[in-house]
């Protein structure tokens, strides 16, 4: 079940927000610099650079570990497992990223740029969600098959 838990915002410290801001800003500058220096081909590759993942996986792992420590448990393994789940989600999300790029590539030359970017963003979330849902359904089917 998909839900929103705002306590995730409170557990992120100011310096962790700053790290993500700097990492994201730097990745964007790097993509622009490489496009300027080596052309649109190399610059384009870096539009799919993992700018959020390293920081988010580290934070997910650290927060899960701290949560377990607070109740007197050793949370290292749990933290690692949470980061692995985050990474699986990122791998599924990358299919949405691929769809985003495809829409921009095919539609941009002949359509309004803002319409293209908006449509590509919707396609990204729909495709990413579809892959995530398929994986959920596959898990449910495997569990049901094992119970039989």
């Amino acid at each position: 079940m998909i839900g929103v838990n705002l306590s995730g915002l409170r557990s992120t410290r100011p310096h962790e927000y700053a790290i993500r801001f700097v990492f994201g800003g730097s990745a964007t500058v790097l993509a622009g610099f490489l496009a300027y220096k080596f052309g649109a081909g190399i610059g384009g590759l870096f539009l799919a650079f993992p700018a959020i993942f390293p920081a988010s996986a580290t934070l997910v792992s650290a927060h899960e570990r701290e949560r377990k420590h607070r109740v007197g448990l050793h949370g290292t393994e749990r933290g690692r497992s949470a980061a692995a789940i985050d990474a699986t989600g990122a791998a599924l999300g990358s299919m949405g990223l691929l769809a985003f790029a495809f829409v921009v590539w095919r539609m941009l030359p002949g359509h309004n740029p803002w319409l293209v970017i908006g449509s590509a963003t919707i396609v990204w979330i729909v495709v990413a969600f579809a892959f995530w849902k398929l994986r959920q359904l596959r898990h449910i089917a495997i569990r049901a098959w094992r119970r039989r």
Partner: protein
Amino acid sequence: MTEWILRFLIGGIVVSLFAVIGDVLRPKSFAGLFSAAPSVALATVGLAIHKEGRPYAAHEAACMMIGAVSFCVYAAAASCLLRRARTSAHVAALSLLPVWLAVALGVWALAGRP
């Protein structure tokens, strides 16, 4: 200089925004989708269209597809490493960045360096 500062600020804001969305969503596997959000692309495509024109930005997007395939390999490798080896999350995420680069450049070269 102003353009680079603008890029940095827009990139930082967009990436932070997606990261915050990922922070509040549950379950974690769903929140993970936002780790692969097109944050750098959203921050860059508008600037590329404004400065270089639509064909240039479309060319960048075509090559971004190669980067996305490489991202999939990178994230799947990170997931495997975290599950099977006793590696910490930041070591796994950072040590595999060269894998992302190698796959991206390798596929780009095989595709004839578009």
